[in-house]
């Protein structure tokens, strides 16, 4: 009923709040990926969001910077911030410990959420390399609260077979999105 009213009164297009909870599952899934499937987790991950032109957003970004600097000191990691050609901002983290990587990414997304900008979160990406060294990404979609597969290949093509296969194999351990129409591409990932 509420949905019906939202649609009638033009409120259905309101920004979607993020779901951060599902993100953490990638830590254990990474072990399966490596031990059983031969996909090596790379010590790098990215958080991507759409910045807003607002003083409040700048403040959130400053706090995010501060927290990342502390996290970097505590763990053996580095980070950088990068804006891509579609004006999305990336936090790119490098850390040899995959679990730390996941925790820091989750912490960063929580800071944006606490400042009221969770709606601007697009995705978190984790990279794996298959036996031939080709990249495979698990993309955490904050709006869905689920992971989607992305296997980019030369010439902006996707390896759909590999994507379908990994979704089927990791379904039990990872909150994966089953509907392929939600498997958004994210080309030129900087990780």
């Amino acid at each position, binding site marked *: 009923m509420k949905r019906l009213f939202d*649609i009638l009164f*033009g409120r*259905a297009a309101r920004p979607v709040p993020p779901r951060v909870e599902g993100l953490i599952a990638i830590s254990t899934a990474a072990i399966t990926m490596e031990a059983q499937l031969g996909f090596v987790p790379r010590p790098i991950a990215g958080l991507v969001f759409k910045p807003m032109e607002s003083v409040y957003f700048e403040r959130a970004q400053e706090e995010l910077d501060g927290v990342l600097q502390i996290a970097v000191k505590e763990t053996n990691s580095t980070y950088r911030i990068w804006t891509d050609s*579609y004006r999305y901002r990336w936090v790119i983290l490098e850390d040899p410990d995959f679990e730390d990587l996941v925790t820091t990414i989750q912490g960063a997304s929580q800071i944006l959420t606490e400042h*009221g900008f969770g*709606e601007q979160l697009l995705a978190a990406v984790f990279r794996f390399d298959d036996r031939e060294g080709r990249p495979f990404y698990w993309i955490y979609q904050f709006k869905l609260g689920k992971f989607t597969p992305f296997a980019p290949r030369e010439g902006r*093509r996707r390896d759909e077979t590999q994507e379908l296969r990994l979704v089927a194999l990791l379904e039990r351990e990872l909150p994966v999105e089953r509907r392929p129409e939600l498997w958004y591409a994210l080309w030129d990932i900087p990780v």
Partner: protein
Amino acid sequence: MVYSMRRVERWARDPELTIRMVLVLFGLGLLYILFLTALIASGIDTVAVLVFAAVFAFLQVVLSEPLALASVGARILKPGEQPRLQEMVERVAALAGIPRIRVGIIETPMPNAFAIGKGLRSSTVVVTRGLLDLLDDEELEAVIAHEIAHVRNRDVLVMTIAGFFVVVAQLVFRILFWSGGGSSDRNRRGSGLAIAFMVSLLVWILGQLLLLALSRYREFVADRMAGILTGRPLTLASALLKISGQISRIPSRDLREVQEMAAFFIIPPLRGESLLALFSTHPPVSERVRRLEQLQRQLEGLA
């Protein structure tokens, strides 16, 4: 903390527009009750009329997408074609939380864009070649975000359903008009038919005005959402100004012929100088820009 946690959500609200939409829909509801009462009282076979109109409306909803796309000569992009545009649309869709949608293109110098489709799962965003040439990437993204907001609000569906009885009223009026419901026959045919004739005319006109108001409010809503999604309301404002400036300069026939689709474009292609604001599907660009500026002030904590 709770206050700041809902920041974007609060910016997305526009209580004034919600109240206006409630009033318009309430008005339409009253009008429709009046219409149905008059129709039943007149002795016309109301059920038959409604069934006929329902089939018509259903077909319109189902067929509107392919028909509209074909009528404006839109071509759906293949994967890998216009990769930047497609990825831009895909990212905004992901940010807005809707499935990947199709992207169409019309080869015309007239800059414009529209979204069409039944719902979230089956929709198409169409842009013209002129739009791609005119706007820079960020402005293009803002226009796409506006169209995606329409998709999320299911504006095509809502407008079709809200307008259902207006279509019925139009139908009844035409039937009565052509079957001699005019002044001379009224006494013979009974006063019921005369009332139905008058009421359906009234419902047609008033209903149409209310629908146009609803359409304009939904434009404001889509603008606001686009401003928030892209994080830069004024980029959309500059896109709107560029498009409207260009549209009034380029004389073009092709897009003007699709008058009935005017409501779905970002800026209606039909821009008669004498069109009153009351009869327009879209609010004036100056008013839309003013509201986007207001949103920007809100984002900066100045309003």
